């Protein structure tokens, strides 16, 4: 396992390097720049701005400078937020996105696993149909419909919650529910399928013949096998929750990193684009690795190779 980890970690270095280099040059080749605005900046002011940020240097020079600073963990100053550094912006906003993602994930797992297990155990009853229909709805209804509907009900009609913002804990409920619900739907379907498959296998019959209680059969014997597809799904799902929170962050005005990730590209905030891309790339690689480890742990037939 140790060798597996070392090898995988070594593989990530060139991957990150390629992503970083490609992003650096791609954002520079996009038309427009950080100071392109509806009202044009006077040419001499533009030159001063470029000199201040080192944009008047040859591109290869800027690239090397960036790598040099990156080696010291410095992601540079933001172009749009003149008095903030990219490090500060990430430190400020990543925790918000992580918190939202974690809460959404808890909701997704709690709802999804429960619904999936119950549906499998009560196959072809109204409970199964209800859970499956709900899951289907969750998959079909996009977050930008679900979010405003929840706001309409809980914030505007009932007046229980804020419609948007990130001030106190009740403000977490609607966004986490909106984001979590989609994933709950997928998890429910995967869990149901996995459970049905496992419940038909011989070792479950054996356990049952030995007189094991149903609760023990479900949680001790069946679930471990039934969760394999869910775990495989969770890797990309967590990544999707983290990077895909843009819509939710916009609907609920949440100060998370997902919006910066998208808006930095529109603003041509070169350093912020690079900073967020590097961060998300690292997160994705780490998540995939974690999923591989958990899968081997859950399925004894797999080995670290």
């Amino acid at each position, binding site marked *: 396992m140790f060798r597996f980890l070392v090898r995988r970690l070594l593989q990530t270095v060139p991957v990150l390097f390629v992503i970083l280099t490609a992003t650096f040059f791609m954002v520079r080749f996009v038309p427009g720049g950080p100071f392109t605005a*509806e*009202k044009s900046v*006077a040419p001499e002011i533009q030159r*001063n701005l470029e000199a201040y940020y080192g944009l008047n240097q040859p591109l290869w020079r800027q690239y090397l400078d960036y790598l040099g600073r990156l080696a010291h963990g410095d992601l540079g100053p933001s172009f749009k937020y003149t008095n903030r550094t990219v490090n500060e912006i990430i430190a400020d906003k990543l925790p918000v996105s992580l918190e939202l993602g974690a809460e959404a994930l808890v909701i997704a797992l709690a709802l999804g696993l429960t619904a999936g297990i119950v549906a499998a155990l009560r*196959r072809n009853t109204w409970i199964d149909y209800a859970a499956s229909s709900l899951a289907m709805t969750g998959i079909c209804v996009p977050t930008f419909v679900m979010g405003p509907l929840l706001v309409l009900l809980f914030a505007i009609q009932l007046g229980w919650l804020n419609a948007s913002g990130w001030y106190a804990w009740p403000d977490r409920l609607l966004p986490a529910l909106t984001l979590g619900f989609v994933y709950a739907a997928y998890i429910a379907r995967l869990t149901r399928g996995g459970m049905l498959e496992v419940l038909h296998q011989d070792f479950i019959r054996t356990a049952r013949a030995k007189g094991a209680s149903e609760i023990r059969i479900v949680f001790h014997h069946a679930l471990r096998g039934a969760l394999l597809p869910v775990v495989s799904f969770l890797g990309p799902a967590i990544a999707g929750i983290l990077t895909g929170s843009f819509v939710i962050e916009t609907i609920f*005005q949440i100060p998370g990193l997902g919006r910066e990730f998208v808006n930095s590209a529109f603003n041509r905030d070169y350093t912020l684009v690079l900073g967020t891309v590097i961060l998300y790339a690292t997160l994705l690689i780490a998540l995939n690795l974690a999923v591989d480890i958990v899968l081997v742990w859950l399925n004894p037939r797999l080995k670290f190779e």
Partner: protein
Amino acid sequence: MSRVSLPSASLLPAAVCCLGLLLGACGHRETGVERGIREQVLHRGLGSDVAELDPHLITGLAEINVVSALFEGLVAEDPRDLHPVPGVAERWDVSPDNRVYTFHLRPTARWSNNAQVTASDFVASFRRVLTRGLAADYATLLYVVANAEAYHKGRLTDFAQVGFAAPDERTLRITLTNPVPYFLSLLTHPAWFPVYPPALEGAGPPDRRGSRWTRPETIVGNGPFVLKEWRPNQVLIVSKSPTYWDAAAVRLQAIHFHPIDSVDTEERAFRAGQLHLTEALPVGKVDSYRRHEPTVLRIEPFLGTYFYRLNVTQPFLNDKKVRRALLLAIDRQVIVEKITRGGQQPATSFVPPAFAGYAPPGDARRDVAAARQLLAEAGYPGGQGLPAFDILFNTSENHRLIAEAVQEMWRRELGVKIRLVNMEQKTVLETRRALDYQILRSVWSADYLDPTSFLGVFASDSGNNHTGWADARYDALLQEAALTADPAARADLLRRAESMLLDEAPLIPIYYYTTVRLVHPSVQGWYPTPLDHHPYKHIWLEN
């Protein structure tokens, strides 16, 4: 298959019920708006977030809306029509040739750390704006001052020769190159606001960008409010300043600025009682508010014009008659009634009819017969012989709808074929800089209360022209107006310049902007103003 009874089956609805009870138990929650009325705390939606609070570096309206609470210039704005009223300067004298302004600073003007606001603070601030390294976007607004442009461009290194002088701590003298009739109004722009030099020095070199002096811990201002909290993308809180010279007149205790990017989200926040004021309103909701809740809907004229630029360096569009025909064939009334629907007015000139003492010529009226005639004279009767033109706009549903309407009007009335091209905003701007378009959707809004804020755009040395059109006669009229002291004669020269502009038609005016927003009935002292500035010291909340 055996069945197990699991408690989880009923867990979900039970959990939802518990949650409901928990929240519902509070009964009617006091909303932010209600608490705000009780405590005189204004909740204002801000549109996109502020990127910076340094008055010398800000560029957007959102930033101006916050910074105007934190700083005050020599003159302030009247809440009803924004005419200049005494600010830090309690009075001023103007020399007979209208070139030298002497401002007398009020002794009670204080920074938020209780230090006196002095004339040398102002001079140091103006010097900072004109420093090359700071690269302040609006440094050009100071060019009206003698030698300011030369100093900013590095042709002059001795700042003492620039027309700013502080004979004593309460007297500030500003010498202009030429008389500028709107000079006092210009002074209300944040580029002219003072900053507290020691606060800047405490946070690093004062003339460098990226300084952190505008953080709540370090910022020092001289406005009616002080910065308490700044959580990016979340909330920005200012509270009443005890050291402000006119603190007795300030009734609001605090303002919470809520940056909300999405207009739909902002509208929902208003309905949920989180905001007294929104920054905008989704177009699709205007009719509904007009019908059901007209009291909260505010539509006010705004000094901005929606227009199309025509690239006069392109074949066919280099023919004035073709351009003029395109200008005359548009039915602007249909566009504002059927598409924009927010009280906008059809633009018959480039300059909106909102400047005191200036009546725009209004030559851009619909005249289809004349348009057809011009096109025929140009050699393209019924559009024959003309290629299809591209209308370029940045990706947005509204721009597309307007472009489609114009496309149909030109096809039907003139037989001119049009293709619609949309691109992402900064790509459009880069295309515009390169003059690589034919017809381009554009917008212009005033920086200060004078028609030259618009007409200067099409001067041949303007960095905002972007049409390839230049005319020495137009430049000469603007120049002559700049040297004319008599207001009526000056207005007449400007009107002649604008007439010429509309006749040459490097642009096609379409409509004059409005601001469309929701205002809670408790907001008092909020007047429609052409620049959408609303001095907070005059606002209070009352049911």
